[in-house]
């Protein structure tokens, strides 16, 4: 072992520490527990005690940061340099800094600790079975509120044990909002934000407001990374978007193409060539517990050891057993002497990772930290959709009492109607209902649009799902949003699609073969190339010329089971598109014929 030049050490035994911020990679409970266990290693062999302070001056200040983070010793992005700490002393001396471009885990991949649910905060069990399908990451399937969840056993269908996964919709980190979840949309410097942002910051951390108006309320928190988030790159915290285009090739999985270091990466939009947004895919990560234990060794006065098995050896090595080597013990006892009391003080919280040997079966004893009033806590278990693939069936209904606006059969004119994931969706004033294809059953709903597609406004004009990419396009006024799973691109202006700025709204859409979609605006339409996201030509076609027999000014057009529906008032004109001949084959009522209302 080695000590620092001058044998720097603390002159007192009751060492204090303060955790200044948290990594978005881990829940605060897991982070705090890792630090507490790391300190406990050293207190178990010395007379030192470690007390956590919530505020004020502490001997050891713990901080996550990236690149140049204020001390003149910049971090270096992902991998390489992981953390550093200063030897004992005043001011910055004794402080420990962790590079947040690393992926912090307990050494064996993402630690997805749940909150709420019915599994008492147990970690996710991956893979798990839900409705017969296997899931290797948290999912929003089976829910209408957009909250990612996971099963905490291998089979949700049999065990029904679940919890909610880290998400900005569930809680925030640090900031000044006491961990309250994000509120979307929120206003910052007059602009509306529908997702976490790094705007207004230079450190790359993603944040959100926890009220609708940051400019007025100044309440904010940092967004936890979802389990699907990339690390590093220039899109920290964003999920991969598959497929994505890179050098004109399409990728449906993480790749090391374009790199010499073999690290897997992905784009966080559908086109790297265009957007240049990317990040590293998840790997086993680095154990925060082991790295912290090493750094705290420095903070107590130990320099690097030349014993490869020692914790104070400079290189990172994942081990599952007790990390202190006799060399480490000799070193720290050289500075502070051996422990004098017979029983080492246990860590301030129970280990999440018993003996650092297990992860997925760990059972935390800390209760979840409250993040708001009890009514804010999601409490309904994930529920199976009635039929069809699990991904399309959010089925938890809003909890407010039924009011007339909730009665789908009382609605004469819908804002938009669209077939999404094989189900007909009816949108109206921030809510939607859905009807299973071929089913004569009543519509399910209402569901909140904001819960399923949080970026969207209440009033939609049109929606459609591209059959090839499964992307869902939403139009409202002169704006368009494109959803790929839970990730959203937009809002973008209609002009970006090559439409004339005079086009005030899109009133309907019909998907065609070959990646083309007809976009309608009242009596005219354009052909949109979905891949290019551009209309073919600026001159619109006439609806009358292509679809004879439909009313002149329809307010909604959609495709359902291969037929086009043109809506006016509460009627529809159904057009058969077979054999290149467009012919009206039915006129019916939206309410009775499509919604099966009595």
């Amino acid at each position: 072992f080695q000590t620092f030049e001058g044998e720097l050490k603390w002159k007192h035994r009751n060492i204090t520490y303060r955790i200044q911020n948290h990594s978005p990679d881990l829940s605060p409970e897991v982070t705090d527990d890792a630090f507490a266990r790391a300190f406990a290693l050293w207190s178990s062999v010395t007379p030192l005690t470690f007390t956590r302070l919530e505020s004020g001056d502490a001997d050891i200040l713990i901080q996550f940061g990236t690149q140049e983070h204020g001390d003149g010793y910049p971090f270096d992005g992902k991998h390489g340099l992981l953390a550093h700490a200063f030897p004992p002393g005043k001011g910055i001396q004794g402080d420990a800094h962790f590079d947040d471009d690393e992926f912090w885990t307990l050494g064996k991949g993402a630690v997805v600790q749940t909150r709420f649910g019915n599994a008492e905060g147990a970690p996710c069990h991956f893979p798990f079975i839900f409705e017969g399908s296997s899931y290797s990451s948290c999912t929003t399937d089976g829910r209408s509120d957009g909250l990612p969840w996971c099963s905490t056993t291998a089979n949700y269908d049999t065990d029904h044990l679940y919890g909610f996964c880290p998400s900005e919709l569930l809680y925030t980190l640090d900031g000044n909002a006491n961990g309250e979840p994000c509120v979307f949309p929120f206003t910052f410097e007059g602009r509306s934000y529908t997702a976490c942002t790094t705007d207004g910051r230079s450190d790359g951390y993603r944040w959100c407001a926890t009220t609708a108006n940051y400019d007025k309320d100044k309440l904010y928190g940092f967004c936890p990374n979802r389990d699907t988030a990339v690390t590093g790159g220039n899109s920290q915290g964003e999920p991969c978007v598959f497929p994505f285009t890179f050098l004109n090739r399409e990728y449906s999985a993480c790749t090391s193409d374009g790199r010499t270091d073999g690290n897997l990466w992905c784009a966080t939009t559908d086109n790297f060539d265009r957007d240049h947004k990317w990040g590293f895919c998840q790997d086993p990560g680095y154990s925060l517990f082991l790295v912290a234990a090493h750094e705290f060794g420095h903070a107590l006065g130990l320099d690097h050891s030349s014993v490869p098995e020692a914790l104070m050896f400079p290189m990172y090595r994942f081990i599952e057993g007790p990390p202190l080597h006799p060399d480490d013990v000799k070193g720290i006892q050289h500075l502070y002497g051996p422990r004098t009391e017979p029983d080492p003080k246990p860590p301030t919280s129970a280990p999440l990772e018993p003996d650092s040997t297990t992860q997925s079966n760990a059972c935390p004893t800390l209760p979840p930290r409250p993040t708001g009033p009890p009514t804010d806590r999601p409490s309904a278990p994930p529920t199976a959709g009635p039929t069809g693939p699990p991904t399309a069936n959010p089925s938890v209904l809003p909890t407010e009492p039924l009011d007339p606006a909730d009665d789908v059969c009382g609605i004469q004119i819908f804002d938009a109607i669209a077939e999404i994931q094989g189900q007909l969706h009816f949108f109206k004033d921030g809510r939607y209902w859905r009807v299973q294809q071929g089913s004569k059953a009543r519509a399910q709903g209402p569901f909140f649009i904001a819960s399923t597609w949080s970026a969207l406004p209440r009033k939609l004009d049109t929606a459609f799902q591209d059959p090839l990419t499964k992307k869902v396009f939403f139009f409202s006024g002169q704006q368009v949003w494109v959803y790929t799973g839970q990730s959203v691109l937009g809002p973008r202006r209609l002009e970006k699609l090559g439409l004339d700025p005079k086009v005030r709204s899109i009133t309907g859409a019909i998907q065609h073969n070959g990646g083309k979609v007809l976009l309608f605006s009242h009596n005219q339409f354009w052909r949109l190339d979905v891949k290019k996201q551009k209309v073919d030509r600026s001159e619109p076609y006439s609806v009358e010329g292509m679809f004879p027999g439909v009313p002149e000014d329809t307010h909604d057009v959609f495709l359902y089971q291969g037929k086009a529906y043109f809506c006016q008032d509460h009627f529809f004109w159904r057009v058969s598109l077979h054999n290149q001949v467009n012919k009206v084959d039915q006129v019916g009522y939206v309410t009775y014929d499509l919604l099966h209302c009595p």
Partner: protein
Amino acid sequence: APRGRPSAGPIVIQFPGEKTNNLTNQQFAEEYLNRYGYVPAGLLHRDGSSLKHALRKLQRQLALPVTGELDSATIAAMRAPRCGVPDVGR
């Protein structure tokens, strides 16, 4: 069948937001030796013996075979994840 273009080898690009890392092993090693305290900045360029000396020091510290050469084991050790506190000096 149409013949594909002859392969020019894998394309490597500069990813936005990522520091250029196209240093040669020699340049990388010099930067590493300086960063972790094995040699003061700038001294390596005066003569080759200082590099050998610094490498020997590093190899002893990292429990590598002491060759004084920039061999593959040494390069691999230098590229491994580690603590940012210098191994030598303050």
